[in-house]
């Protein structure tokens, strides 16, 4: 029996993994194991097999490659793929190795160690460990995790909730999806640890509708965790039966990813942003103390408990500790997931991991931090990837999305696209965002068709300033940045149309 490993991740499947599985299904002597993905998506579909000395991989495989693989010829040891060997994998260490729904494999690869450690600690000691780790939330706002947990723990209430924000709205990001599809027990473990620390008995994972495979895998994983006794299987509220965890699926909308909007949506209402305070850690779901954290944030927690806060804090820069999970997309040669300590420059990341531009493409700009992130031209790639450097530059790391645009990209059209997105997705609660985005789109549309008026670029700058300072949440507050950085660095393209 020859055992081959093939990823079951949505992007591996979109690249052709299912086609291989189908073509090879009835091959005698072949056992096909579906794993998570290593995140080296430019190599998918990637097929691996155990050889003396470790896994060997064949990349961009087609059905006809099977004889070659079975003969063991032409593959490369996984340990020698530079895209992977240059990374510091912590949260994504097991990706591409294990089967997503095998709790045994998860435990064998270090899983559940964090929970075991947490069981030996008092809630206060758990929170202290997170404080030492200096972990900050990975959903965008980068708030210290321990602090939020402390507030929820100290707020007295008959019930408390733990909510995983799996809305992953930023285009260009996919690490939450990979976690949910590839190592769902890691998310569950992180939520369980949080529940112990704050004293919660119920949790929800709010998963976006665009991720049907993730929702399915999570539900299956929850069922297994219940059978293994990790999770309680009683209905929510039946005290004493352990932590009850459930997946709820959303119905579109970017703004629903904002934590107060997310809680509104979880309760079944319109996903509209609410004024804070109170913060969810004090008064969240059904008015109870609630930890809302990003999927990746929860997924980091088990490693910190298992290996200690000091170990985690030893990586990264002064105020950005640990590893950063970047997701490279757009016109690079090697799109995929990169986990490295904070502190490398954007240029290093694009060269060492992105591998430069896709064949035939020339660099124009890179956007970091999703649809609300700033654009960087070639002259600004020296910026360090950490919260401070980005804040200083008026930019955001967001959820770690990096999108590279080539020189065929029309910057005026791109700016219009950003404002159209804002107008489409604004929840409508505050005026600067609701009206400002429509006005912004209109101005850009008239510039685009050659009807721009003198002063339109100043008008956009003014409008941007109003949105930045007067919007209720970071959606309206950040929406002007991609547009204004497009004008700042590529102004000539706008002015040319306004002559």
């Amino acid at each position, binding site marked *: 029996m020859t055992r081959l490993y093939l990823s079951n991740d949505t992007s591996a499947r*979109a690249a052709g993994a299912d086609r291989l599985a189908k073509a090879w299904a009835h091959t005698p002597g072949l056992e096909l194991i579906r794993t998570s993905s290593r995140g080296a998506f430019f190599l998918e579909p990637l097929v691996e097999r155990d050889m003396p000395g470790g896994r060997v991989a064949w990349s961009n495989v087609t059905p006809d490659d099977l004889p070659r693989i079975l003969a063991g010829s032409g593959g490369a040891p996984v340990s020698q793929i530079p895209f992977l060997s240059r990374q510091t994998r912590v949260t994504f260490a097991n990706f591409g190795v294990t089967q997503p729904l095998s709790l045994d494999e998860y435990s064998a690869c270090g899983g559940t160690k964090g929970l075991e450690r947490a069981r030996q600690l008092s809630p206060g000691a758990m929170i202290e460990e997170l404080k030492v780790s200096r972990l900050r939330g990975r959903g965008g706002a980068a708030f210290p995790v321990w602090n939020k947990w402390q507030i929820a723990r100290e707020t007295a209430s008959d019930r408390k909730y733990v909510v995983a924000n799996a809305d992953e709205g930023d*285009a260009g990001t996919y690490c939450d999806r990979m976690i949910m599809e590839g190592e769902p027990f890691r998310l569950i473990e992180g939520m369980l640890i949080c529940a112990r620390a704050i004293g919660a008995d119920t949790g929800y994972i709010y998963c976006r*509708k665009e991720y*049907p495979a993730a929702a399915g895998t999570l539900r299956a994983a929850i069922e297994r965790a219940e059978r293994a006794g990790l999770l309680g299987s009683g209905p929510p509220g039946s005290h004493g039966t352990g932590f009850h965890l459930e997946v709820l699926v959303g119905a579109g909308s970017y703004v629903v990813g904002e934590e107060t909007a997310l809680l509104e949506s979880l309760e*079944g*209402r*319109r996903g509209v942003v609410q004024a804070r305070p109170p913060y969810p850690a004090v008064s969240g779901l059904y008015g109870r103390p609630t930890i809302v954290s990003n999927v990746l944030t929860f997924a980091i927690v088990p490693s910190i408990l298992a290996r200690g806060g000091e170990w985690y804090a030893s990586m990264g820069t002064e105020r950005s500790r640990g590893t950063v999970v970047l997701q490279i997309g*757009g016109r690079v040669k090697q*799109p995929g997931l990169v986990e490295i300590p904070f502190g490398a420059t954007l240029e290093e990341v694009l060269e060492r991991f992105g591998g430069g531009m896709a064949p035939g493409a020339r660099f124009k700009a890179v956007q970091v931090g999703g649809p609300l992130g700033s654009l960087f031209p070639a002259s600004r790639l020296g910026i360090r990837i950490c919260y401070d450097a980005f804040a200083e530059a008026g930019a955001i790391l967001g959820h770690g999305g990096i999108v590279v645009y080539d020189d065929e*990209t029309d910057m005026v059209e791109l700016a219009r696209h950003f404002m159209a997105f804002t107008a489409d997705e604004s929840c409508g609660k505050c005026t600067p965002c609701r009206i400002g985005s429509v006005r912004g789109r209109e101005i850009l549309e008239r510039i685009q068709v050659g009807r721009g008026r003198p002063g339109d670029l100043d008008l956009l700058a003014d409008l941007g300033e109003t949105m930045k300072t007067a919007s209720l949440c970071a959606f309206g507050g950040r929406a002007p940045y991609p547009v204004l950085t497009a004008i700042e660095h590529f102004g000539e393209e706008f002015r040319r149309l306004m002559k």
Partner: protein
Amino acid sequence: MVEEGLSALAAILERCRLNHTTQSRPPNILQSLLAIQKALGSVPLHAVGEIAHALEVTEADVAGVLSYYPELRTRPPGRHLIRICIGESCVANHCDRVLAALRDALNIDVGETTMDGRFTVQRIYCVGNCAVGPSLMVDDDVHGRVAPQKVGELLNEYE
């Protein structure tokens, strides 16, 4: 057909109602509407009154949720729902060319359904397949590295 739809609706509403009474909290309008859409293909506008009544909320509450979420529909889509990604990573990978090919192949614009009821086309901001874009989602299948000239062939898989 209409009657079948209505009794299915009543059954779902009963389940939704039970769900919230056992948990002693207000009814979850969004999850109820998603369950209805799953069973009926859409949430017909004429059912809003009945839904509101069963969930013991106002019609405005139901209509408000229904109109807020892009994935909730008041009319059933074609047999297959095509979602073309226009998220930034796919924009960078020139998804406008895929959209043009889609328009050519189907003769419809975004938001429309083909005459034979086979396809509805929608825009979407990211399906999490950014590293393998441009992306096209047909029903629950995600297709990656979609070449504009291959769009017709890809759609042949869907009857």
